[in-house]
């Protein structure tokens, strides 16, 4: 089995030759290559080269055409502060308030901000890995893009005070995600990861997720599936157990588990959904390779009989992680 077949097997609960491993290596690929993170997230070709070098070094099962959480909001007019050694952040948000939404139009991914560079990375990665290794893109989920358009505090108060208006922001954010995700699929990714940390139950009540976020996520995953996405992969950090029951309805086929989630509990809630996780991200910085190996072995033991599992970290492997720790997770498979 190659990496892609292995992941397809995990998603469909067939028996892979071994448990697939997806290290959530994003900016760490730049650090590994000695490239400033600030350049990595602006240059699609550089990003793809770094990803391929990291793949060659670690031998895991997926590469990522993923820059940071500011790509969409920059394309929509937010002003970013860019630094050489870290991810950019929003200095001035595109929307002063939700009432300004009508000013915005869904950006053309071929022309707007860094979206074309991300698409370039997607094309290069797919060209290089073909159907051997999973090529993953990334879009922000509607809730997270809303916070990136308005600022988290303003967005959350808007959600509470002006739910109808906020619903329009979420609809717009979902349109942006669909457009960008479809462009990534056309550029060659096997699936766009939907990254939506602001939809975590640590941030919003689960009932709010059900009523506001779930219908929009359905739209995303349905559109991506129709366009040929290998699977719907949702990444929501934090203690997300209370929203897992909604995942199958949303079209989620791979659910990311953060480190704070009990894998056995997640198994019970999502018996037919492939799970990925859930080593503690900070362990890749602070722990030893032996710790990582032991934790990984524990997860493989937990999911050995079930299948439907991808060994991974609970969230991004921090850029400053120790390479030997990433290697230890990959070796544990």
């Amino acid at each position, binding site marked *: 089995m190659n990496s892609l077949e292995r992941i397809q097997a995990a998603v469909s609960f067939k028996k892979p030759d071994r448990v697939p491993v997806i290290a959530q290596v994003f900016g760490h690929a730049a650090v590994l290559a000695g490239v400033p993170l600030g350049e990595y997230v602006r240059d699609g070709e550089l990003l793809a080269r770094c990803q391929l070098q990291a793949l060659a070094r670690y031998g895991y099962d997926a590469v990522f055409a993923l820059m940071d959480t500011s790509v969409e909001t920059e394309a929509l007019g937010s002003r970013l502060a860019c630094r050489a050694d*870290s991810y950019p952040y929003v200095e001035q948000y595109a929307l002063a308030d939700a009432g300004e939404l009508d000013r915005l139009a869904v950006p053309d991914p071929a022309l707007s901000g860094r979206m074309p560079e991300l698409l370039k990375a997607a094309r290069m990665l797919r060209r290089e890995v073909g159907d051997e290794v999973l090529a993953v893109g990334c879009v922000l989920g509607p809730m997270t893009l809303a916070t990136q358009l308005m600022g988290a505090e303003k967005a959350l*108060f808007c*959600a*509470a005070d002006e739910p109808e208006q906020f619903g329009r922001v979420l609809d717009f954010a979902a349109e942006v995600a669909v457009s960008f995700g479809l462009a990534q699929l056309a550029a060659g990714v096997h699936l766009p990861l939907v990254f939506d940390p602001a939809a975590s139950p*640590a941030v919003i*009540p689960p009932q709010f997720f059900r009523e506001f976020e779930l219908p929009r996520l359905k739209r995303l995953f349905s559109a991506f599936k129709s366009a040929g996405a290998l699977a719907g992969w949702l990444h929501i950090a934090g203690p997300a157990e209370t929203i897992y029951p909604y995942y199958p309805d949303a079209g989620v086929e791979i659910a990311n588990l953060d480190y704070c989630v009990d894998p056995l509990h997640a198994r019970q809630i999502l018996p037919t959904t492939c799970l990925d996780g859930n080593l*503690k991200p900070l362990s890749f910085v602070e722990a030893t390779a032996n710790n990582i190996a032991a934790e990984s072995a524990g997860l493989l033991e937990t999911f050995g009989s079930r299948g439907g599992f991808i060994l991974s970290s609970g969230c991004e492997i921090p*850029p400053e992680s120790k390479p030997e720790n990433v290697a230890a997770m990959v070796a544990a498979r």
Partner: protein
Amino acid sequence: MATIVNKYVIEQVSPMHNQNMNRLIDVLLEGDQARAVAEAMSLKNGGVEDERIIADAIEPAMGRLDAKCTLEQFNLLEIMLVGRAVTGVIRALYPDAPPAPSRETVVLASLEGDVHDLGKNIVRTIMTAKGYRIVDCGKNCPVENLVDAAVREEASIICISGLITSVIPSVREVVPLARRRGLTMVRVVAGGAALKQASADTLNVDYVADSVFDVIRYLEDHPGELS
């Protein structure tokens, strides 16, 4: 301003000794700022002292929110809404100047390299409502500036909020620098999604908190010397 989100965060509040106070507690826990202010002003205009409103409504409401957080049922939105409602009531009761802080001085920041401040701002709101004097050093704050502020403001507590792991080396510098600057009794507490993955030993701080209420419990359980 009853809203669709607020209705989800309503919790049944058991009866208290005073029906009016009960109603204020209810609307505070709903995070309904406008109704909370109206209820509080109605109590005040009816002759209830400000201090009683704080003791019999705001404190119990915060206690109930704390209990929910302890049960891991909390979310930032709910805490923000309750915090905003409490702040609104206090401003309405004390329009000229807020009541003098009754507790210690806390300096608070997200450290240099970390530009996230949602969690930090929640800590500021809730700890202010609990009577602490908060000096907010903002986000992306160099360690030196944070410790300078602690010295200048005679703080007895330093709180650090962190959403990214790359600030951990800076977090480790806080206690040694504070000690060098003569803050021998200052307690340093860390929290936030990235920092709470680490132990207090790893971060070289006194405590790693799960939530703002966990910070407050720690400080109440480990009283320091007032500066």
